[in-house]
């Protein structure tokens, strides 16, 4: 009898080891917590045709799981951008979308909310006035509390991007204002993992996702730091910077911004008004002494963001030291995420590394290479921050590969071709044609955005006010900046 019991125990142990690896990832009740990147936010809004291909929805679809999302019908909420010409110009849909399944009896599986910081997951229960948060939470408690209610068999947590992204989008880099203090971040994050682990009976089935470097997204990289006011980079002819391109001037000292600085996409509004031009650049370019650009040079440096009595003032240059501050804080957050994951038993899906690899190598699908380039790359949407459906699906594919490797699972990789060829799996949302302007088209790669478009972009990034100084009323005349470049 003793031998029988021993043998039986051994067999049971062997069977336990031999359980199919796929069974170790149970997506039956999969819950995703996060921010806009989890919400499925795309092209400035939340709308069904973006949400259906949110990264977590694509992962859940790979196993046929019942995965409920707070879908918003067309035309969405937030002002969905549509490209109307390659200048580029955009139109914005009215923000009048309605929830499509608000009466769902259970919490949604996708509890990501656009704009959320890590603390919001723990504490926020609604918006005042009513906003996107309410369409997700429906007054039923915090996102974390609703995740617990679902008794999740698997969780993914991708939160923290807004704890440092705001510093880049506002160009205001202040610890405790636009950068969440590390200790506060870690405390909230620990609450999330501790609570989820308890809700899973200590099993800790799920992944946490690291935060990509916001200095690598097209919002930060599309406009070069060198001054291309004349259509091409102008190089220093002499001095310490001889042979290097002239850069925009910045408001910190009125001189060229140092290498390593970043000029956000939103700077197009002020650049188009003559900001950032150094007189020395015009000299080195052989620009006429009486040309119209002379009126602006050295007088309108790109403003750095700041906090004044009137509130936060949008900036248009992130100096190199501030870029380092943002990156350092991101690295600290990622270190804390990894350490807390180890403490509570969750696996780390290194989204930051995946993103860096995509930036470096792109992704080739059947002969077409996706990249992170603005508009043309396919990975990022019109705001330069959030993914397209393709971008989210690529992240989902990477996550499935990670789960298969980390858990020995056998989840089918998502079929990206429907999204690659149609833009999303909903179909039918894209506008027919756009405003045709051949001249603008030929200048596509180097063109900047109109102030109106930039205002639209600013709205995407939240309640940062426009910088009063960008108005040129009563200031120097706005020069004609860039000649049409032929045969681009």
């Amino acid at each position, binding site marked *: 009898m003793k031998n029988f019991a021993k043998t039986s125990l051994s067999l049971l142990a062997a069977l336990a080891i031999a359980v199919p690896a796929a069974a170790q990832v149970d997506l039956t009740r999969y819950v995703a917590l996060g921010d806009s990147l989890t919400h499925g936010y795309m092209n400035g809004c939340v709308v069904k045709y973006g949400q259906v291909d949110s990264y977590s929805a694509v992962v859940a679809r790979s196993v046929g799981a019942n995965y409920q999302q707070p879908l918003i019908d067309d035309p969405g909420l937030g002002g969905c951008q549509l490209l109307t010409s390659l200048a580029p110009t955009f139109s914005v849909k009215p923000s009048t979308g309605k929830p499509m399944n608000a009466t769902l009896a259970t919490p949604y599986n996708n509890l990501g909310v656009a704009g959320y910081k890590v603390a919001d997951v723990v504490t926020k229960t609604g918006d005042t006035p009513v906003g996107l948060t309410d369409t997700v939470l429906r007054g039923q408690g915090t996102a974390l509390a609703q995740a617990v209610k679902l008794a999740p068999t698997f969780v993914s947590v991708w939160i923290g991007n807004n704890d440092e992204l705001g510093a880049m989008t506002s160009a205001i880099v202040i610890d405790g204002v636009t950068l969440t203090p590390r200790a506060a971040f870690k405390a909230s994050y620990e609450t999330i993992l501790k609570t989820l682990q308890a809700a899973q009976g200590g099993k800790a089935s799920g992944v946490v996702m690291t935060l990509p470097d916001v200095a690598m997204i097209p919002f930060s990289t599309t406009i070069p730091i060198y001054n291309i006011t004349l259509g091409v980079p102008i190089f220093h002819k002499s001095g310490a910077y001889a042979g290097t391109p002239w850069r925009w001037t910045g408001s910190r000292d009125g001189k060229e911004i140092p290498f390593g600085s970043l000029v956000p996409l939103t700077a197009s509004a002020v650049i188009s008004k003559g900001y950032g031009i150094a007189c020395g650049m015009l000299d080195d370019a052989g620009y006429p002494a009486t040309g119209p650009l002379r009126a602006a040079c050295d007088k309108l440096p790109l403003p750095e963001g700041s906090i004044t009595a009137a509130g936060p003032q949008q900036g248009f240059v992130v100096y190199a030291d501030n870029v380092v501050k943002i990156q350092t804080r991101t690295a600290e957050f990622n270190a804390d995420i990894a350490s807390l994951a180890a403490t509570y038993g969750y696996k780390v899906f290194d989204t930051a590394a995946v993103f860096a690899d995509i930036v470096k190598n792109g992704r080739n699908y059947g002969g*077409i290479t996706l990249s992170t380039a603005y508009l043309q790359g396919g990975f990022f949407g019109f705001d330069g921050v959030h993914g397209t459906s393709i971008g989210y699906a690529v992240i989902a594919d990477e996550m499935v590969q990670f789960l298969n490797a980390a858990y020995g699972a056998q989840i089918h990789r998502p079929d990206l071709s429907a999204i690659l060829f149609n833009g999303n799996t909903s179909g039918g949302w894209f506008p*027919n044609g*756009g405003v045709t302007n*051949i001249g603008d088209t*030929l200048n596509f790669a180097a063109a900047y955005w109109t102030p109106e478009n930039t205002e639209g972009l600013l709205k995407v990034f939240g309640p940062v006010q426009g910088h009063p100084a960008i108005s040129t009323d009563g200031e120097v005349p706005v020069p004609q900046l860039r000649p049409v470049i032929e045969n681009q």
Partner: protein
Amino acid sequence: MRNSNGWLRLGAVAAGMALLAAAPAAVAAGFSIFEAGSKATGMGGAFIASADDGSSMFYNPAGLATNDKLSASVGVTLIAPFSSFKGDDASYPGYGYEATQKRQVFFPPNFFVSMPVAKNVNVSLGTWFPNGLSTAWDNPDTFKGRFLSQRVDLKQYSLGLQIAAAFTDWLSVGVGPELRVSDVKLQKNFGTINPYSQAFSDVVHADIVGDGFATDVTFGAGIQIKPTENISLGLSYHGHVDQTYKGSAVLYSISTGHPDLDAAVAAKYPLNTNVPVQTTLQFPAIWMGGIAYHDCKLTVEAAATYTEWKVFNETVFAFSPVDGKQVPSQVLSHNWVNSWSYRLGMNFQATEKFNFQLGIVYDQTPQPDADVSPLLPDANRTGYSVGFGFKVGKNSAIEFSNLALFFHDRSTNGQQKDNYNGTYKTYANLTVLNFKTAF
């Protein structure tokens, strides 16, 4: 390309006419073709040590040394390939996606004539197809591999002049130059990310065609040794050529529905005009060796071939600028490896007028997973052959053979360099007909 003398030009014209008559599909590993005669094909290609008819010009140039009559052979190989693709568990083109190739039949001809010029010395002239490839996908405008290839046709024809001599009753050698003539065609679409739809869009259809034929010269050589009455050994070689093709590409605009995007494409690509293009393909050298046992009625041979596919490492389509517009070079990395094939065959002279052959072949692919694509999906293959010969009259014969070639399922194992991952299934049937006569 060399066109240095009249002989080459004459050969090129003759070869070109043959090329126009047939577009062979690759049926030996890579894009080589190993079927140059009925008897040899019936023996599974194990015809190196026992080569003794006109097709010896390909299998072993020494095989005609003791031919004592003016003899000729003409024939054709009917090649019918069937190929399909199914997506693997991968992100693109997606699990379960299916595509098929157009059903085609190719009929590369062969012709050999051999004439004794002295006792145990023969001069031979012959033609055969050593290389060829054709892949044409159904529904090319919606085929998900269309940015890699919609259709490719590659034909290479060989025109050989050889001399073979038997120095003793146990040693024969043969050698001679070979003119290789070939051309290539490629059709594919160019695509881009459409900023409006944030999705793939076809923007250009490219039709790349060689102007005329590429011609180069290499040589073939072989040796046969009979150490005993019943045993013979054979070794042969055909050299490699790098063939450079000059041609033109016509790029046809495909409207995206967005005039300014179409204009941007038109600003980048020279559309609807001939764009000069040049590329070079490397055709490998091939070594063949065999050992045969001969009884009074039975011949059994085991053979192996070694093909130096490593030379096929990269193909670059380089376009010349037109009107200041430059089509980016298309660089295709192949990184093939040298490969072996193994062959076993027999010929049995059942009666004075009837003989038959059986054979089996295993052919190893030189292509790594990363390069397996709609352009050329190669695979290991196993073939089974049978052949018959009927004597007609005193000095003539009709021969027929059939080779059923089963390509092993070829998965890209998730390694395809363009992430076009899936499994290719291919089968090819080859029927060879020959008429031989001697005077």
